[in-house]
């Protein structure tokens, strides 16, 4: 019986999601559906809950879901740890990636890939295959080889950190990639490289959620849908034109509309 429905299952279905930290409710009833092959942009003013939404999807434990659910491929993620979500194909590109001195970019990515394979009952990726993949993906993101042996994020510029996030995404080939403010701190050249990297990873089988404050990134990663988050709720959805409108008019009219 189940099989019949699989085709109709959305990749990501967020239903009336309420979540927060301790008694502070940040998300106040989010509804969002994302299908394979789609790019969704989530925009909104500071403090609207954008990063919280990203962290909740990725399973950050300090957030408590008080109502509603996050369902991936028909499966409620409620009890899944962040690593289990990663194994199921969820990837979050961090706004502030963490520095890990003494662990190289390569070793970190190897560990991430092999832990994911282990969780799926697969052997470690053969060394030569790993090497080939590292070379291929680093070249496509214009990442220098020397960069790969540096300690993860230690002394990286803002742009290098973001590029490294997208590099990890390229290596891990996630089903659902969430880019949290990936454009912040990037100059226009770095933005173009990062956006190109993301576009190369786009396929009919995966989906991307781009979280951003500005429309700028969306010139390069073109969204199929744009959602505006305000005070923990999606108050408006539209196509890419909505992003342009926001760029011109700011967020105030949305706030007013929401207040009515």
């Amino acid at each position, binding site marked *: 019986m189940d099989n019949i429905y699989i085709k109709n299952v959305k990749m990501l279905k967020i239903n009336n999601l309420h979540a927060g930290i301790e008694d502070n409710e940040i998300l106040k009833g989010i509804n969002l559906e994302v299908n394979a092959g789609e790019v969704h942009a989530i925009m909104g003013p500071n403090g609207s809950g954008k990063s919280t939404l990203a*962290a909740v999807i*990725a*399973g*950050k*434990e*300090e957030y408590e879901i008080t109502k509603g659910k996050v369902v991936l491929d028909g499966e409620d993620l409620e009890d899944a*740890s*962040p*690593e289990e*979500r*990663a*194994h199921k194909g*969820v*990837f*979050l590109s*961090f706004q*502030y*990636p*963490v*520095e*890990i*001195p*003494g*662990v190289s970019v390569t*070793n*970190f990515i*190897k*560990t*991430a*890939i*092999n*832990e*994911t394979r282990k*969780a799926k009952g697969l052997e*470690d990726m053969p060394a030569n295959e790993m090497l080939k993949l590292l070379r291929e993906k680093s070249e496509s993101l214009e990442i220098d080889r020397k960069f790969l042996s540096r300690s993860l994020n230690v002394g990286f510029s803002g742009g290098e950190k973001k590029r490294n996030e997208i590099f*990890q995404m390229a290596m*891990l080939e996630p089903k659902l990639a969430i880019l949290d403010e990936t454009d912040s701190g990037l100059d226009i050249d770095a933005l173009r490289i990062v956006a190109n990297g993301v576009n190369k990873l786009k396929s009919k089988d995966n989906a991307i959620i781009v979280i951003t404050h500005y429309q700028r990134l969306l010139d390069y990663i073109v969204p199929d849908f744009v959602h505006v988050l305000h005070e923990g709720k999606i108050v408006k959805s539209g196509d890419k034109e909505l992003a342009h409108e926001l760029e011109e008019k700011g967020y105030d009219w949305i706030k007013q509309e929401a207040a009515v």
Partner: protein
Amino acid sequence: MDLKDKLVSSFMAFENNVDVEHPVHDIRSEAIKNFEEKGFPTKKEEAWKYTSLKSLQKVDFSIFPKEVNALEYKDVKKFFLHEIDTYKIVFIDGIYSSFLSETTHDGVDICLMSAALSKPMYKQVIDVYFNKIASKDESLTTLNTAFSREGAYIYIPKNKMPKKPIEILHFSTGNEASLMLQPRSLIVVEENAELQVIERHQSLTTNEVLTNAVTEIFAAENAIVDYYKVQNDSKTASLIDNTYINQKSKSVVKVHTFSFGGKLTRNNLNFFQNGEYIDSTMKGVTILGYKQHVDHHTLVHHIEPNCESHQDYKGIYGENSTGVFNGKIIVDKIAQKTNAFQQNNNILISDKATINTKPQLEIFADDVKCSHGCTIGQLDEDALFYLQSRGIPKKEARALLMYAFANNVLESVRIPELKSRIKKLIAEKLGVSLGFDL
């Protein structure tokens, strides 16, 4: 009989086995008097507030091992840095093992304290250096001085460097129900000379061992000394390590202490800067569990101007373990332009673990740069989430973060094989395998 009385009354028996005519014996006789007067330190003393020796004093330790025990190399190979060639000075239950050792007199002297104390050719060095920097009133140091007879003796003449690092290993075999060891070592590194030493105390059984060690290190002008202490002993082995280092101008001495085990470990590490442009470095990684206790007491005495000292101790405490860090820096009035840095960071990974950390700065000069910082925290939850979100399970993610936390200290380990050995010990200690060498 309590341990103090036993030790004092054993001194007469000890005298039957050493040359009482040697000038060193006068030093021993003075020392036993001091110990008899002071006894073991108690928690009433500020320096011993957090470390109690009370229960150890109730153990009926043998002061002298009754018979020599033999060990096969294959059985203890793993305790050596066998990946590389080294000189080895090895003791089994306090007695020198020529079978396991590899000493030399080829341009440098890498041999035994007992030989240095008995042969006329070493007399001059002994006269000049023996017990010159070790404390004459700290009771445990004087206890060791009283019974000083065996340990490592290393003399590196001007402009020399031994061909390979030196390993000093002290094994205890459990031949006695409980054994007290008091190794005494003397290391002299002359002008422009260089030395690397790895020291380890290792119990091979669950029988109780108490080691009260004293090492004196003299670094002459421009000398470079790297000293590594690997403390990964069994849960029934206790160590009181007293290391005294005297540095002359432009010398560079680094001591790394890796404390991963043992029952009770007390490290008294004392640097005296008798010259200008001296660099003294003390670094440590401590990773403890069970009811283990480690107490790091460091002292840097800046006596002359234009010198530096660097301290960086990282501690990770789990289960019921307890840690102490007390870093004392004295800057004399004439020691202007001193740069003294001290850093002690700790992570508590269990609610029952405790750490007491205290900087103790006594600065009498006005043109100095001194900084100190202590932190006690838990693992960074955001960092943990970052690693988990990449598919790395929580346990491994925690280990990676702890490793990253300790990494600063490892960076300055100059023997690559030792560095990778320490990384393996850390991974083992944290109970993880990450598919690559940490």
